[in-house]
């Protein structure tokens, strides 16, 4: 018996070591999965978004967009962006079906022509309505779309944060070589993201403000500021009127539904 006990105790002693031997990649992935799990089950939400675009001379212009999102049990989220201003694009709708694996499906509805157009996944690195946000910055953050690496723990203002690096899986179409993300240890909310372009130069920094808690557990930022360090331009997003569990269905996110959205 003694001979048996020894190896077992050795194993027990080793266990914490095994846990601490978690690689930085595993830790990065674990944090991403945990953050995603905490957001699971929101079902659907709608919100109004006001974008303020600012060029390097400080000239501002505004865009108003209504956002609808639907969680999808087995695959990525579905999303609708309905443009209310500027007025020449009023009624234009962007529909996306995110996929955990492979390329997302994206369509644009042009109301004057009554035309639904599929757009290429190349588009994801392009500017969303002339803003400093790319389509990929606003699409749902499926865990599978990146690989991860935890770098360090660091304080970001009042928040004790994990700092992790993530690398887009779809390297062909993404505009980034890597992202650096600060998430707080308590709730795994992101507070800052640094974007590095394909040449690994620091391109943009996104910071999050005024988090609200919805249905007792889902955190959503009230403000997001994106600064482009290379062009000197910036874009602020103000999020309003978050509503969860509005009863949206798959059929509200079909290609066919675009023609009736106003």
């Amino acid at each position, binding site marked *: 018996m003694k001979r048996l006990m020894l190896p077992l105790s050795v194993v027990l002693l080793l266990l914490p070591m095994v846990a601490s031997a978690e690689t930085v990649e595993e830790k990065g992935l674990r944090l991403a999965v945990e953050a995603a799990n905490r957001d699971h089950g929101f079902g659907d939400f709608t919100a109004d978004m006001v974008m303020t*675009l600012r*060029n390097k001379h400080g*000239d501002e*212009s*505004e865009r108003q967009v209504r956002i609808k999102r639907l969680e999808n049990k087995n695959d990525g989220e579905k999303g609708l962006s309905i443009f209310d*201003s*500027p*007025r*020449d*694009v*009023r009624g234009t709708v962007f529909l996306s079906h995110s996929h955990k694996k492979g*390329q997302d*499906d994206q369509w644009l509805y042009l109301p004057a*022509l*009554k*035309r639904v*157009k*599929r*757009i*290429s*996944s*190349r*588009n994801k*690195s*392009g*500017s969303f*309505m*002339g803003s400093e946000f790319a389509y990929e910055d606003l699409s749902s953050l499926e865990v599978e779309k990146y690989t991860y690496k935890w770098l360090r723990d660091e304080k970001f203002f009042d928040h004790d944060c994990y700092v992790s690096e993530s690398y887009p899986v779809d390297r*062909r*179409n993404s*505009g980034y070589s890597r992202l650096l993300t600060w998430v707080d240890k308590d709730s795994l909310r992101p507070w800052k993201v640094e974007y590095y372009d394909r040449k690994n130069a620091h391109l943009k920094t996104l910071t999050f403000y005024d988090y609200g808690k919805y249905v007792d557990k889902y955190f959503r930022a009230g403000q997001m500021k994106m600064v*482009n360090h*290379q*062009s000197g331009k910036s874009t602020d997003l103000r999020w309003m009127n978050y509503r969860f569990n509005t009863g949206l269905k798959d*059929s509200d996110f*079909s*290609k*066919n539904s675009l023609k*009736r959205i*106003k």
Partner: protein
Amino acid sequence: MRDVNSFYQGLKKVFVFTLFIILAIGYESVMAIGLTGYIAPEGRYFPSDHLYMGQKDNDASVAIQLEAYHEWGNGSSITFVPFARFDSNNNKRSHYDIRELNFLWVTESFETRLGVGKVFWGAMEFVHLVDIINQTDLVENIDGVEKLGQPMLNVSIPFQSMSLDFFVLPYFRERTFPGEEGRLRAPFVVDTNNAQYEDKAKQEHVDYATRLNITFDDFDVGLSFFNGTNRDPNLVQLMSSSGTDLLIPYYEQIRQAGIDLTGALGEWLLKLEAIYRWGSLAEFYAVVGGFEYTFIGFVLPNADLGMIVEYAHDQRGIDGMSLNQNDAMFGLRLVLNDQAGTEILTGFSYDRDTHSKLASVRMSRRIGDSVKLALEGWITADPPKDDVFLYYLRDDDFIGLEVTFYY
């Protein structure tokens, strides 16, 4: 003609009446009506003098469109979109149209649209073969993209990633053509007052159409079938009593099967449209295929440059009614993604049979939040005589400037 017109006028009155009934339902619902629209003055400058008798050189006009929309809580809605253009020089281009006046009823398992509406089918940027529900409002623009409102009953049944549409089209709209005063026409004026029909019911012939929309993986596919009055008239040359040449539009009965496809393969968008059409005058196929590729961050970090290539073939060949019987098209779309939303679309087309060339350009940008400036140009590069259509328009190159005020 008069009967048919009065039928259509009657139809319009019924819809307008219905609208007012709905408006009157309650003050609250009146308050909830969304009113939007635009007013757009436009000037067109033709550097060359007119070629044909009766034409006027340049052109100034203004277009007005209004959109009234009301939605009930259950997703049902009513839409009313009247449109009018007042043209200083061309009384055929001065026209009004009800682009939309329809009631949409949405249930869990299907959608029904009743009234005047607009439907687009297809995949391509330059050549639209499959699109057949609405008639072209040709006086609006030579590119044929503007459409007239079409009276319809449309039932749309979605299931999973497909949808099946049925259309009953109880009234036919005739194509608009520039009158005697208008540029961008043949030496003969199209006499739209004396259109001829194969079917004795004329404009009251009831057309049917159906379409199956399928989305799978990275592909969108549409299969469509149409049975009714051809939207493309055959133009028959006649001598009028006063001895001048006239073109009479003749509308035959046709059947048309169509397929359109868009595939997103990596960074490429692959596109195809094909039709098979048969009627008493002709039986033929036509096909157009091509691709789109977008360069993101072209020169400027936010700018996108899209490259569009299309090739069109029509079995009727050079003597047929098609303008794109053996034509290659190349387009560049530059989207600056700046605050003004600046966009430039240039298109070049080359006819491989007649070697005629055509270039078009459209530039647009916003001023502030609610004004848009659009500049348009159209250049035929000395078309050869055997490209009849372009040869007729050889002196009609133009530059157009439009300022759209949205409200």
